[in-house]
């Protein structure tokens, strides 16, 4: 199969704007989940969120573009620039179709749209501005990045709730197989305005705790839901020959395998067992040609809902239960909150950083872990560990299961 290289990372996250800022915050275990600012979230029973406080949109987005777009797109535009800069990437002048943008989206341009619907119903149709038609829909960020940066390759947008960030990578591989050498993938999310938060509250999976240490606690006995975060990550993927040909200086790692399944059980209830989740993991390992014994770390979805945490541990045990030593499992989303489509993209960035530095970030507030099944070693505190192969998992509400295998770059074997 085509092995893809990750050659650029762009991060806009509650932990920081910029890949190193994010990583330093994560390794130090700095609290990024804090009381919601900007509106009265208490009306919805919510105290905490992972807001991106260091993000100054005007530093990243031109003024005329800013008025046309939602905060979610500002973050995508910023992350796409950061990823291209990190990669030292400029699109080849002789092939305008050589670069694609293939992002995941979750809830679209929430705050912008709430303003416009508000105006429509309060004042009438003429109050709706010229940009509602291009700011709200789920393809807005992909379209704007393509236009701003001149990327004309086969672009796309997939929606699979929290699994979207991984799925954009899965779909991007098909784009590369069909001849496009470079694809921007990942995504961002901004669901922290009154209406979007209220929508999420109705799903019944948010923690109402008032202190961070009591709130989003994946795999803890006191797990009681998750905290909403915003932001995400955009990554540049390149076909190895093309990356070499342009003299790419940096390779974060290889995308070695991917698998996706759907529980197809119920429109909102969790699956009765972990069969399909485990199958997604196995598909990705088979795709990568990696055995369960070779996996050095799993970056878990970490739903923070007891039943969903149990299903994830069952899936991991089904795949890794026969190992002689259990596989380390961490849930770094616990530091940022869940960023929907942006979250799984951010976890890919985090996994690549962990691989670079040989540091496994721990799981926040994992004070009293649940009983773990055979094959699983929950990582509560950051630890030093050499990492060559990392599996990143993600789930989307409704039953989407996705698994991605990342491998440390071995230049001698791909040249």
């Amino acid at each position: 199969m085509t092995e893809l290289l990750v050659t650029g990372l762009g991060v806009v996250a509650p932990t920081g704007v910029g890949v190193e800022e994010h990583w330093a915050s994560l390794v130090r275990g700095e609290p990024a989940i804090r009381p919601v600012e900007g509106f009265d979230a208490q009306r919805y029973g919510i105290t905490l969120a992972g807001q991106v406080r260091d993000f100054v949109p005007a530093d990243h987005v031109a003024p005329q573009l800013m008025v046309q777009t939602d905060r979610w797109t500002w973050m995508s535009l910023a992350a796409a620039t950061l990823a291209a800069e990190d990669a030292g990437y400029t699109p080849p002048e002789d092939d305008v179709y050589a670069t694609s943008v293939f992002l995941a989206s979750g809830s679209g341009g929430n705050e912008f749209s709430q303003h416009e619907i508000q105006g429509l119903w309060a004042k009438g149709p003429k109050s709706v501005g010229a940009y509602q038609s291009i700011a709200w829909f789920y393809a807005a960020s992909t379209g704007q990045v393509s236009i701003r940066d001149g990327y004309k390759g086969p672009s796309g947008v997939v929606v699979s709730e929290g699994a979207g960030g991984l799925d954009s990578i899965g779909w991007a591989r098909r784009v590369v197989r069909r001849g496009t050498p470079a694809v921007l993938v990942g995504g961002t999310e901004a669901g922290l305005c009154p209406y979007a938060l209220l929508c999420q509250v109705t799903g019944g999976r948010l923690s109402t705790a008032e202190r961070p240490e009591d709130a989003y606690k994946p795999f803890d006995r006191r797990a009681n839901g998750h905290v909403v975060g915003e932001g995400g990550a955009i990554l540049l993927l390149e076909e190895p020959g093309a990356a070499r040909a342009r003299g790419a200086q940096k390779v974060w790692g290889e995308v070695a395998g991917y698998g996706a399944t759907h529980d197809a059980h119920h429109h909102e209830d969790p699956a009765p067992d972990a069969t399909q989740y485990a199958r997604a993991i196995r598909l990705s390992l088979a795709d990568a040609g990696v055995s369960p014994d070779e996996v050095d770390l799993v970056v878990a979805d970490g739903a923070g809902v007891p039943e969903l945490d149990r299903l994830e541990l069952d899936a991991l045990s089904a795949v890794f239960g026969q190992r002689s030593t259990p596989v380390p499992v961490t849930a770094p989303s616990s530091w940022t909150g869940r960023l929907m489509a942006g979250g799984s993209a951010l976890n890919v960035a985090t996994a690549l950083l962990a691989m670079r530095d040989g540091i496994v970030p721990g799981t926040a507030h994992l004070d009293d872990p649940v009983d773990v099944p055979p094959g699983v070693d929950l990582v509560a505190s950051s630890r030093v560990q050499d990492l060559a192969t990392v599996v990143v998992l993600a789930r989307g509400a409704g039953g989407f299961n996705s698994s991605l295998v990342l491998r440390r770059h071995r230049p001698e074997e791909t040249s």
Partner: protein
Amino acid sequence: MRERRRVVVTGIGVVAPGSMGREGFWDMITEGRTATRRISFFDPARFRSQVAAEVDFDGVKLGLSAQEVFRNDRFVQMAMVAADEAVADSGLRFGVGDADDAPDPDRVGVTLGSAVGATMRLEQEYVSVSDGGRLWEVDPRYASRFLASALVPSCGATELAVRFGAHGPATVVSTGCTSGIDAIGYGAQLVEDGDADVVVAGASDAPISPISMACFDTIRATTDSNDDPEHASKPFDARRNGFVMGEGAAVLVLEELGHARRRGATVYCEVTGYANRCNAFHMTGLRPDGVEMAEAIDRALAQGRTSPDEVGYVNAHGSGTKQNDRHETAAVKRSLGPAAGSVAMSSIKSMVGHSLGAIGSIEIAATALAVQRGVLPPTANYEVPDPECDLDYVPKVAREQKVDVAISVGSGFGGFQSAIVLASPTRRES
């Protein structure tokens, strides 16, 4: 290199304005009837464009449970009804174990396109929780418990996966107005790449709501021919003045050729190529030269080793805006070269309106039926030629014509340009 897995269409389901089901839709478009009318869903008096192609849709009468109707936005309901028809049409039986017609559930995927997802429900509920637009910090007491799924349109893919017990890869594809082509294109890629043997692929949109109408009003993308709704959608005609909003869904069953053959399935056509490109120019504007759409058409034709000379029918995007129809005409001329002079090209948006992301799948359904039946649907309301749109648009009356290769194209906000190629199963490969 392993042999390329080939993808065929073995089932079609349609929910379109002015008709019932696949056959009702086919009868309507081949009779050249239009389904555009004055908007009845709300009072459109304060809107610039007051015309739409609405579906007289009753989910319960069409086989959905009351619970399914209650929890789902209209776009999901229409997708479910179209998918039911497509799956029944395919003869595949899901969830019956090892029977010959039962696909392996782990090898069944879902790709559902939608440009605007659950807009209608999100807007309606917003009116309640905001007290008619008065409260920015909305009131949670009036919120429905299904808002969480409405917020993220992947709920539509979930409903279809659950419905058919499909455990393969599932996703919603949301590339604006090319979503319906892209969803079927991605579905075909799942089969080609060996990740699924069967994919339930299509698109659905239900955008006839005040916020959607208002946002297209302000940019004058929609027609203001309010005094003559039945003739409001006029693609390629010199009098065209904007698109007519529509709604609906179409779902196809895509199947690996060998899988379809082994069970003796009826094959409508083969999906031989799909490609998309971006114009990287403007979110809503189109350059008149059509270069990027032409590139998408070229790539899609090349994938299926089909030559421009073989294309007998182009199912146009033909939205009826000034710029689109000119752009598209230029793109088809650029791709097909001299062959464009003799190709038949029509826009069914003249009859069923422009249902944003859904229309791409509805148009692919029409194209597949045209290939199977040797009848090309017309462009209704075409009266006055435009010098910049000088191809054969099959005016007003359907045409009996056997077609070996047909293409369907789309163009959307964000700069997306997509093309898909369908070939007759009886086509003789050159």
